[in-house]
């Protein structure tokens, strides 16, 4: 079970809340202060992307953020309910939304060493993790 789990309606105004909660839980879990800014940004990007996918596909639903404290890693999963076909839909859309999606993923992959973009039962899932050891590598 996740240490803290957050579900919010896929609306832009709730992304900030998710960022703040994720950073607070990560800090408590022992994630190094020097990477908290990056963690906050990465979670925000993942949630923004999820919200955008819901909007683009015209699907209601929730974004789920699971924050899990493991022995040596702090794991964050951001899952959307935008449907399994969203990846193809995004690619076919073209134009600005696709650019923003690409920018968002570029930020995430540029910031987070351990990241995986996959599919869950209802939509996409982005899994990221950070070390909780006192010494961390600045990426």
């Amino acid at each position: 079970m996740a240490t803290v789990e957050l579900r919010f309606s896929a609306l832009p105004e709730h992304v900030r809340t998710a960022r703040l909660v994720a950073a607070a839980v990560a800090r408590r879990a022992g994630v190094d202060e020097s990477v908290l800014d990056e963690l906050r940004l990465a979670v925000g990007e993942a949630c923004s992307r999820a919200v955008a996918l819901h909007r683009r596909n015209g699907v209601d639903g929730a974004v789920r953020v699971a924050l899990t404290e493991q022995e040596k890693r702090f794991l964050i999963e951001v899952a959307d309910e935008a449907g399994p076909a969203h990846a193809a839909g995004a690619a076919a859309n073209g134009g600005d939304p696709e650019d923003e999606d690409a920018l968002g993923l570029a930020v995430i992959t540029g910031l987070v060493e351990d990241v995986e973009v996959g599919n869950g039962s209802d939509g996409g899932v982005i899994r990221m993790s950070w070390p909780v050891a006192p010494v961390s590598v600045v990426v």
Partner: protein
Amino acid sequence: MDLSLSTRTVGDRTVVEVGGEIDVYTAPKLREQLVELVNDGNYHLVVDMEGVDFLDSTGLGVLVGGLKRVRAHEGSLRLVCNQERILKIFRITGLTKVFPIHNSVDEAVAATD
């Protein structure tokens, strides 16, 4: 914290001072401001980001959109930013090659290249 925006004119440049957080929720306000400025004939913009606490890819997208708009009128969009955590986002997305980034508003206003 929300987004704060204020504009002023310095010579032939319009300086947009941005403060607070630019994210998926607040970025549309910045987009509206930039669109309005361009529609009103302000084609040389300086976006002062020294008061920005948070910037994400949505914000980057809005700045790129602003740049496209002013370039359509042979204008310019320059950024003022000294904050490492914000500059890092421009670097990892390759946008440091797209935007002229200055240390101060004075420097950005004086720049002509």
